[in-house]
């Protein structure tokens, strides 16, 4: 009996040994006022020298020396004037060695960490949608939300059916406003700041109306900077906490960003007006450590595919390559 008790105690101690405290923690957004870091940056809440970066630029993936895209064009045998295009492509996040070096240098300088540890953010979900140039902006295809490593590639296939040859040629050869891929990224983190404050909604609306539009990332941070001094009254012990809290609060009020077309360009963000914030939005209270997710977006304009990817286009009706058969 005694031996069993001893065995149980040792087993328990052994269990503690097997699963020591790791101190793994969530990460919170850190500010990059002068945009020296070409990524969205998060900092580990328990390990101050650990940073996680989130690339917000995506492009068509490349392997074996070429971009991973293919377009097949074919017509309805009964209506030869109308064609269908089937597009298959892959995308990947962009993080060049120049960008990564710049990020490491900026983190060392800004945060005084001689040996920061930088790695890609772990908890990120992505979703791909494909758009033509139609208004209102409705997707030609939308993928599912999926989690994947930031260094991975993802694929999508979609069809543009029964359009005139001229219309398809216009979509494939437009330098801007042809096909676009929106990559939405949902990053999970926690709120860094803790503060209470009073919001002056009249002033905030006035500033919002003047601005008109804001995109996630550096542009949003700038908007926060522009408005915090004139539209927020608070007495925090740490002003940076008030800023973080205000930033979280304002995101919550704006809701998820969406796709807008401004001057023939697709932009992912929030349209602002003089009525964006309601009078009841007059106070904020944000707690440190609360779960928090932010949406970011990357718009990949496929551009003039007839020029840039002619060898990836095939007319399966006549076997010709490129867009000549559409002219």
């Amino acid at each position: 009996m005694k031996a069993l008790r001893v065995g149980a105690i040792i087993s328990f101690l052994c269990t503690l040994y097997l699963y020591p405290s790791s101190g793994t923690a969530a990460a919170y957004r850190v500010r990059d006022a002068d945009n020296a870091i070409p990524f969205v940056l998060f900092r580990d809440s328990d390990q101050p020298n650990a940073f996680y970066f989130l690339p917000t630029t995506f492009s068509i993936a490349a392997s074996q020396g070429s971009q991973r895209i293919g377009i097949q064009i074919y017509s309805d045998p009964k209506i030869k004037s109308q064609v269908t295009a089937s597009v298959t492509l892959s995308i990947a996040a962009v993080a060049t060695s120049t960008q990564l070096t710049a990020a490491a240098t900026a983190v060392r300088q800004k945060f005084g960490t001689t040996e920061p540890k930088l790695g890609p953010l772990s908890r990120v979900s992505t979703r791909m949608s494909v758009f033509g140039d139609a208004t209102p902006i409705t997707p030609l295809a939308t993928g599912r939300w999926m989690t994947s490593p930031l260094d991975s590639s993802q694929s999508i296939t979609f069809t543009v059916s029964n359009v005139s040859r001229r219309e398809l040629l216009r979509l494939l050869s437009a330098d801007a406003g042809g096909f676009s891929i929106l990559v939405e990224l949902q990053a999970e983190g926690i709120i860094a700041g803790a503060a209470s404050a009073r919001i002056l909604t009249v002033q905030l609306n006035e500033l919002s109306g003047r601005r008109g539009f804001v995109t996630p990332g550096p542009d949003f941070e700038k908007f926060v900077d522009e408005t915090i001094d004139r539209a927020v009254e608070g007495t925090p012990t740490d002003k940076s906490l008030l800023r973080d809290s205000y930033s979280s609060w304002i995101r919550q009020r704006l809701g998820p960003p969406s796709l807008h077309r401004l001057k023939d360009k697709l932009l992912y963000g929030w349209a602002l007006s003089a009525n964006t914030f309601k009078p009841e939005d007059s106070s904020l209270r944000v707690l440190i450590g609360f779960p928090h997710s932010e949406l970011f977006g990357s718009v990949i304009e496929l551009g003039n595919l007839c020029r840039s990817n002619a060898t990836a286009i095939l007319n399966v009706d006549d076997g010709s390559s490129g867009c000549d058969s559409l002219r």
Partner: protein
Amino acid sequence: MKVSIFLCVLILCSFGKAFGYPIQDAVVGLPNPELVTVYPDEVDKNLYYFLPTTVELVRDADGKPRLGVQYWGFTGADPGGLGAALTFSVRPAFDKIKLQQVADAIKAKNPNARWAAIPVICSRMNVILNSQFFPDNQTINNVQSTPLNNVPPAPLGPVVTIGTPPATPVAPASAPEITPAVATPAVPTSLCTKAGPRSNVAAQGGSVDSTQAFSIAINNIGARAFAIKSSSDMDVLGAEYTYVFRGIGTRLHAKITVRTKRVYEHFKARSSGNAWWGLVKTSWSADWQKLTNDGSIKVEFLQGGSTVSEDYMMEVFKSLVSAKIAGTGMFKPELQPAGISNPGAARMGWGFSGGGGWEKLDETNNFTFEIQKQALEEREFSVGLTFSAVCGKYPNNFADLTTVGNKCISKTKFEQLSKNVEQCVGKKLAVWKSRLDQGLITQTTWERESNLATTAPCYGT
């Protein structure tokens, strides 16, 4: 007996060593970073895990892809009509160059560093191929997983799921759960147990070096897309690999203070008459939001922090429910409205009846407790890549079953063939159209016959 105790300890310790888990939020960082996701092991500080980040065509020792396309009926009349069969093998893959750079950097810091692929507990491989490229009668499963916002997605290009996923389990079948000092370990419902066509991950098992073979029938358009010798850089086929692995989730250590009077006030305002207040899981979320926003429930983070709101919310919820059932904490009997008739309280132990007993509570009478937990979590990742699996790129992998010895369909030959086919189809359509115009056939007959004319082989001029 001593020997048995020793053996017990030895077995337990070595068992644990063998079954460490990757720490899912502790991506290994470097002074000079690379866009490569590497997880450290929870137990073995020298062990690092890497993940599949893409998919590739399987190749043999000579670099030749495991790809075969046989087509018929395009270079002459064929008893089998028009069609093709596509067979290929894919597998998960990594960016080996980047991974090597990271491995070298970690080795420089930790000479004892070792590497392992992430232990996959279930996986699925899908083919990405446009819906118009395979026959109508082929089994097709569209991607229908519910996105995070629970809004059904617009139709994505169809994904064909054919064949069985790899089945080489490499993870422990029954993983030991973490035993935290204070709280209950929480392993969510496994992502691998879902079944059916809407399953996120269809099959148990799989490993990051398993290959998966597919064989797909392709129709007329699809066959031409693959076999015409033009556009050698054109992607027409892809694969998506979805895998689930288990790892250590975020550590959470938080102090929760429930400001009793405010919480009572909140629920009293929501109640009417003798209605019972709250503590129903389905309605707790909205209450939680309000109570934490206005400070009625205060959460202080002592270590870590979960990104999942429910981690805190449900712990508080469970504690309140437990306290209510046991009559402890804020539900101690002395907090009940003294001398007030409360039929609800008589049945359930506590309730509002419009009485004033609860008013005696004050701000100092708080209910405080700590959450300290760390659990195993499953994570599902999906990666995909498209390939230039066409004859212009891999002519030796193509075979024309009609003109034996031929590989690709040459552009010149195809142009001539297309003209012939077009003329042939045109003649057939003209005949049926004329009959329709003369009222000799019905509209239904016209539609049937014209469809047949455009889909059936037609080679005559």
